[in-house]
């Protein structure tokens, strides 16, 4: 990466959820990462590893237990909601389920216009025209703005959610499993759209996914999360071609290969990921990341 300052910098970000009886879910544990300008950082891991919690912390939908978030040189960790509003324009999120992210009773054009109105931009611009342009940008047509969510397919709905996320011209878009619910042919189209938008608008992406094959396509750098902590972080080529941590290797080995000639005989494992719930006064051991080669950090294993 270039020497310019990162767009967003997260340091020692931690989120604990109490679950009764004093026990605590260590959802995110001292996570530090950066996303550069025009860069895609992918966060991969299995259910419960804390990747979505991390996304929600970074966009301030959740308040961190500790740690800091710096956006473009400004500490937004405990900024007031009023002050946060201006910064939120720079940070947008797209969720997994486009069915649940759109109001069934509102025309989709209104959904895309809403952020412009909420942020008080409507008085300076022609909202209808801006929304129509956004629709065209994501591969939909102008006349679709008056239609309702049920009239669209899943892929089209996700395009609408992308248009809404882009309405405020954000710098960072967090895509939380944004293509996971889509059929493969649609998924490929939406991923291509996201890449086009990145080069056109200079966007940065935090791309959260459990699908390593998709991550390999879209990312510049990759962070592997396990039980709330990052166990490996580095350039995409290093993670995929020279993985160092045993969990990264295990994840890569588990991906089904779409080629019947390379069918592998895997050992029949039955082990599972341990629980992130810890009894009062206890907690996970913190991993130490060591630079294996430039920009490629690996957790030390016993």
């Amino acid at each position: 990466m270039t020497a310019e300052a990162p767009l967003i910098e997260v340091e020692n970000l931690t989120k604990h959820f109490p679950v009764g009886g004093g026990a605590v879910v260590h959802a995110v544990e001292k996570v530090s990462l950066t996303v550069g300008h025009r860069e895609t950082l992918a966060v991969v891991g299995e259910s419960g590893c804390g990747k979505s919690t991390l996304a929600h912390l970074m966009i301030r939908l959740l308040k961190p237990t500790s740690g800091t978030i710096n956006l473009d040189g400004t500490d937004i960790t405990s900024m007031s909601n009023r002050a946060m509003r201006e910064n939120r324009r720079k940070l947008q999120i797209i969720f997994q389920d486009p069915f649940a992210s759109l109001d069934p009773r509102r025309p989709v054009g209104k959904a895309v216009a809403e952020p412009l109105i909420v942020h008080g931009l409507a008085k300076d611009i022609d909202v209808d025209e801006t929304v129509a342009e956004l629709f065209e940008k994501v591969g939909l047509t102008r006349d679709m703005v008056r239609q309702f969510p049920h009239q669209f397919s899943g892929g089209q709905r996700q395009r609408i959610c992308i248009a809404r996320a882009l309405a405020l011209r954000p710098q960072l878009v967090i895509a939380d499993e944004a293509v996971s619910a889509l059929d493969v042919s649609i998924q490929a189209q939406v991923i291509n759209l996201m890449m086009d938008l990145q080069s056109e608008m200079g966007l940065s992406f935090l791309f959260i996914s459990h699908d390593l094959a998709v991550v390999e396509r879209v990312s510049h750098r990759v962070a592997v999360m396990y039980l709330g902590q990052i166990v490996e972080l580095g350039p995409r080529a290093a993670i995929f071609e020279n993985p160092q941590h045993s969990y990264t290797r295990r994840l890569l080995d588990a991906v089904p290969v779409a080629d019947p000639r390379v069918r592998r005989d895997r050992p029949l494992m039955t082990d599972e990921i341990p629980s992130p719930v810890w009894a009062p006064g206890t907690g996970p051991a913190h991993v130490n990341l060591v630079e294996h080669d430039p920009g490629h950090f690996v957790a030390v294993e016993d």
Partner: protein
Amino acid sequence: MEPLLSVRNLTVTFGSFTAVKDLSFDIHEGQTLAVVGESGSGKSVTALSIMRLVELGTRGEIEGGEILFRTPSGDVIDLVQQSESTMRDIRGNQISMIFQEPLTSLNPVFTVGNQVAEAVILHQGLSKDEARERVLETFRLVRIPDPEQRLDQYPHELSGGMRQRVMIAMALSCDPKILIADEPTTALDVTIQAQILGLMRDLREQTGAAVLIITHDMGVVAEVADEVVVMNQSRLVERGSVYDVFENPAEDYTRALLASVPRLGSMAGTTTPSPFELVEYER
């Protein structure tokens, strides 16, 4: 050799909508057949039609065609013509099914051991103690660790992967001839998916049951299938051995589907993202 199950010209409708149109394929003993397609292609309706569950609750109708099943005694019967009471005897006993989401398929207020025992008590007339032994045996077969303890646990106490193992144990408890698995690993994490796919391959060798797997995931197809049926918009697009379909697809749709599958390792030697090269096809 005569097929174990032969679907011939199957057409299934929901009111004016045709969910499956003129579909034909065979499954042979010991074989794994994958039906692959995108959402709405008719693959799950095909599975539910074989179980004759499509008419229950969902108001589907098998409008035409035959589903010929070779029973253990050697007779060939058309499942479409069978009464509900005959079907009850076949379901879970000779043809059993597992679904995508194991949590919604298990009863939360009974222990998992109890639920698997119910199937063998009902279909095979075992006593309670014999049933418990049989459940333990199937739990070991699907490699559930500490089966004696797991038996007495409730579904919420198990992880997603363990629950799916319980479902597979239940499906295998009566030694079925055919196991239908509808997206069995879609809800599971990738490391657990690898475990379950390995288990399914292993079990086929141990039990000799034929497997019909329904999936949207070409990676899963490549891992487990011998034969493949590709479906799109209610119709069969292409049918062939897994090698033919992957290496020499005959139809544009199959080529388009394969082109959009993200493949691990496809970006080796590069450092920046790059878009998919999509293949156009006529809808």
